[in-house]
């Protein structure tokens, strides 16, 4: 196993590290400025992928970083904002915004190092503190073909959106200090280790687990933790029979559209290069989004008589969450199948969680992200195969064997998320208390926690 000093992105052995890059494009760019010999040298070193910062790759990942931050601010914020009652809209926005700030600071202080640093003897489980405060990382420090500070930033946007996803489990009733404390501890205890296992050279990476952009790291962790938190917090007043509907489905749609566009940064950016890998990841991401949306809308049409706006955008998010782990490995036709499956399966699970299990995972984080991420992670084992239009599993590895690794990954990530979340919640409950009073819940968190009104009507 390569020393994981720099982030390792899984690629099948049959594919060259820069094999996807368009040689003509590289040649054309270099040949203008340099002599033939210098051009050949630069081309050769670009093909090594460990030396030299490539401006094309960097430009794309700089952009992708902005796109993924945009997914949280304001994409996810608006998406959730529209789904809650009007007197809680600001609190939903506040949760996402403050988590973005807290996660950013913690990422610098410790979480990046834990996720992607070298853990020495414990590197199978967690990174060390060698990169705390980005120690030793200067402007010229490279991580693959991009600056390490950029890799740090790109990964930070993932570390921001993952705890922000969990906001959907607890709106309208969680105490603000509890939310901040939970999110902060969760980032360090759940997100950073899992990111290390899968992307930072930890044990799941060693086993060859395939998670291109965060099916396990982002969606399973957030989804499972959300379910645990929703269960322990208790449901909203009036759940399940007397709830108030989403106050602004239009706002939700606006946020959802930002998620779709931003997801191009999320998945295509996870290629960490600008070229065929990123382009194909973008393609399959988009196809899955559209397919998921249509499948959900169609199922709703059949089941309830009308296709709804909230339904179709939720299906889109399900499609995106599900394609996330697969986005670097599957082809467009596979993405179509994955998207359709996502739209149908995730919809079914929203009913299972709310009506059968009676857990008020208010904005369906587990059903859409938890199940979607798990589904996509497992589906990768099949749709990555050449037979199903994918770009190949690792040499010598068959689909069923890979499925075993994927399943092990999903189960272990889910188990760790659940157990750790349980402990964190108990701690937070003891320290600051979890839930507002019933009167406060009736009045709404906007006034109670933030002293503001969303609408002046």
């Amino acid at each position, binding site marked *: 196993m390569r020393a994981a000093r720099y982030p390792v992105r899984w690629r099948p052995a049959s594919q060259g590290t820069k094999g996807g890059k368009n040689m003509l494009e590289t040649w054309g760019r270099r040949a203008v400025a340099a002599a033939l010999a210098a051009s050949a040298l630069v081309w050769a070193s670009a093909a090594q992928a460990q030396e030299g910062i490539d401006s094309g790759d960097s430009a794309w990942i700089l952009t992708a970083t902005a796109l993924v931050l945009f997914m949280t601010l304001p994409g996810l914020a608006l998406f959730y904002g529209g789904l809650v009652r009007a007197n809680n809209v600001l609190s939903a926005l506040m949760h996402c915004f403050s988590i973005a700030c807290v996660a950013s600071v913690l990422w610098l202080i410790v979480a990046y190092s834990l996720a992607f640093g070298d853990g020495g003897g414990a590197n199978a489980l967690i990174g060390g503190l060698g990169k705390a405060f980005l120690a030793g990382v200067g402007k010229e420090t490279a991580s693959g073909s991009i600056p390490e500070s950029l890799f740090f930033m790109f990964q930070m946007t993932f570390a921001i959106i993952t705890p922000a996803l969990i906001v959907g489990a607890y709106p309208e009733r969680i105490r603000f200090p509890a939310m901040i404390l939970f999110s902060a501890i969760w980032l360090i205890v759940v997100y950073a280790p899992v990111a290390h296992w899968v992307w930072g050279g930890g044990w799941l990476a060693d086993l060859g687990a395939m998670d291109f952009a965060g099916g396990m790291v982002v969606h399973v962790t957030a989804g499972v933790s959300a379910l645990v938190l929703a269960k322990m917090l208790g449901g909203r007043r009036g759940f399940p029979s007397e709830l108030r509907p989403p106050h602004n489905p239009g706002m939700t749609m606006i946020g959802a559209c930002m998620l779709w566009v931003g997801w191009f940064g999320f998945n295509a950016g996870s290629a960490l290069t600008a070229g065929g890998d990123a382009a194909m990841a973008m393609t399959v991401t988009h196809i899955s989004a559209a397919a998921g949306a249509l499948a959900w809308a169609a199922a709703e049409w059949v089941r309830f008589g*009308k296709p709804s706006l909230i339904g179709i955008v*939720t299906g889109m998010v399900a499609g995106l969450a599900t394609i996330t782990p697969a986005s670097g490995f599957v082809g467009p036709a596979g993405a179509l199948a994955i998207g359709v499956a996502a739209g149908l399966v995730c919809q079914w699970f*929203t009913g299972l969680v709310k009506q059968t299990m009676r857990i008020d995972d208010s904005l369906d984080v587990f059903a859409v992200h938890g199940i979607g991420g798990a589904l996509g992670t497992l589906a990768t084992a099949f749709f990555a195969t050449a037979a199903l239009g994918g770009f190949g599993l690792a040499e010598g590895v068959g689909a069923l064997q890979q499925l075993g690794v994927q399943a092990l990954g999903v189960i272990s990530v889910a188990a760790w998320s659940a157990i750790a979340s349980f402990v964190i919640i108990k701690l937070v409950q003891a320290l600051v208390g979890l839930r507002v009073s019933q009167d406060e819940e009736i009045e709404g968190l906007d006034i109670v926690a933030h002293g503001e009104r969303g609408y002046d009507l």
Partner: protein
Amino acid sequence: MKFIVAVIKPHKLDQVRDALTAIGVHGMTVSEVRGYGRQGGHTEIYRGAEYQVSFLPKIKIEVAVDDASVERTVEAIEAAAKTGQIGDGKIFVYDLGRAVRIRTGEQNEEAL
């Protein structure tokens, strides 16, 4: 003097306003309210969960008229606001004790 309160379907507001203007009633207060009578509510479905919405949007019109105009005012509102479907609304007539025009201080019938 009488104070007439009419709760009507929102899309009928313009028609009622035109009808009142036609009979010489030139002032009114309009508010957005919610309510139900026999119409009941409707069901909305979000992500598979049903929400019963009992209170429907309505428009409440309030207009003060002198006794001589009450009958034709009520008839005008009734005719303009009617669709024949449940939920058309109701008209209530109150006795009005006093009225003042704030700008000029005119009282009662002169203020209407």
